[in-house]
């Protein structure tokens, strides 16, 4: 039987909290494991169809923007440094990632136009590329709490994530969906 998703969410947050010391000791696991897991917990607690009819959130734009700005905030190296030195910021992280990123993303994504989704995917890949580019080559230390060599590993982490996501998003488009191929313009070659 599938466990209810809020239970999974609690487990995920609990995992992130209990193991926060080892997870945050390395920027790769901090930024590429713990932060996404926290955001995912927000997705899990959002019931399907939340805010589907709200006029305020037509096209999901408003909530996607909430998620965007929260992500931008946590992308600032100084925010990450602050988490490690201030318990208040650590708490803020555990609250804003599920409720400021995961939940609004889930609500907005469900309502987003396919074109907007496409644009977002393309931008995510490019921006991960930008991060990879900057972190691999930055001659300065970006976080006081992490080593330069950690910074490089994080840069490569961004790069692999960008490549992985592009494959993950593009590959399905090569797979023929018979359900899709119904448009009667011309007998599709794949029929």
């Amino acid at each position, binding site marked *: 039987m599938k466990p209810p998703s809020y239970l999974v969410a609690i487990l995920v947050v609990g995992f992130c909290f209990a193991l926060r010391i080892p997870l945050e000791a390395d920027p790769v696991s901090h930024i590429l494991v713990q932060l996404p897991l926290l955001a995912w917990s927000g997705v899990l607690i959002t019931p399907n169809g939340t805010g589907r009819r709200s006029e305020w959130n037509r096209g999901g734009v408003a909530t996607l923007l909430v998620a965007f700005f929260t992500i931008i905030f946590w992308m*600032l190296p100084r925010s990450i440094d602050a988490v490690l030195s201030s318990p208040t910021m650590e708490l803020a992280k555990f609250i804003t990632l599920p409720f400021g990123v995961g939940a609004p993303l889930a609500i907005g994504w469900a309502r987003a136009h396919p074109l907007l989704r496409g644009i977002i995917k393309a931008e995510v890949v490019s921006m991960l590329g930008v991060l990879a580019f900057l972190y691999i080559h930055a001659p300065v230390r970006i976080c006081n709490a992490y080593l330069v*060599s950690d910074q490089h590993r994080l840069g490569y982490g961004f790069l692999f994530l960008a490549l992985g996501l592009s494959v993950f998003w593009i590959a399905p488009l090569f797979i023929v969906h018979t359900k899709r191929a119904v448009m009667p313009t011309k007998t599709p070659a794949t029929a």
Partner: protein
Amino acid sequence: MKAFLASLAVLIAGSVLFFKATDGLQALTAEGARRLAVQREAPMVSSFMLETMKGSAEPLPGAPGKAVMVEFIYTTCPTICQSAGGDMARLRDLVIAEGLGDRVRLFSVSFDPDVDDVSHLARYGELHHADGEVWTIARPTVNDLPALLKAFGVVVIKGDPDTFGGYEHNTAIHVISPTGQLSSIVDTDDFDGALEALKRTLS
């Protein structure tokens, strides 16, 4: 229309947040924020007693009326960070050439007082031609160390195995005014910036 207003509100709130979180787009990193805050607020630095490479005791900030330039080091650095010593010597020469030698005290302070005893400090001073008059090498007591680092906003972490057991920290020159205020933080190789900051605090 409602959706547009909601999005606009989020856009404005988000931009304001971002603006605030970066001190008006000026500091993206904690190190940038530290330097900016010092420049704006010039906080007072409480006094710490140091032990110099000659074994004598000396307060930091130093004698009243004298400006201070401090950097943090560890003498056992096995790699590139030894160049900080050369940089400091160069800065000392520039300060003297400007005729400011008697108005400023230069310190290289070890953040590893456990290992860096007086003999280590003296050897480091000899290696980089620290005179002891204008520029000296010193260490805090082990008990004072955390408060000292916090006062200057310096974070020291253990390096990975590649650095042969060394440390990494946010290296910089900290300029303290004659009144004991931390007024400026610049890169160790930014000699022009350091001299300029020094002259500002002396004027």
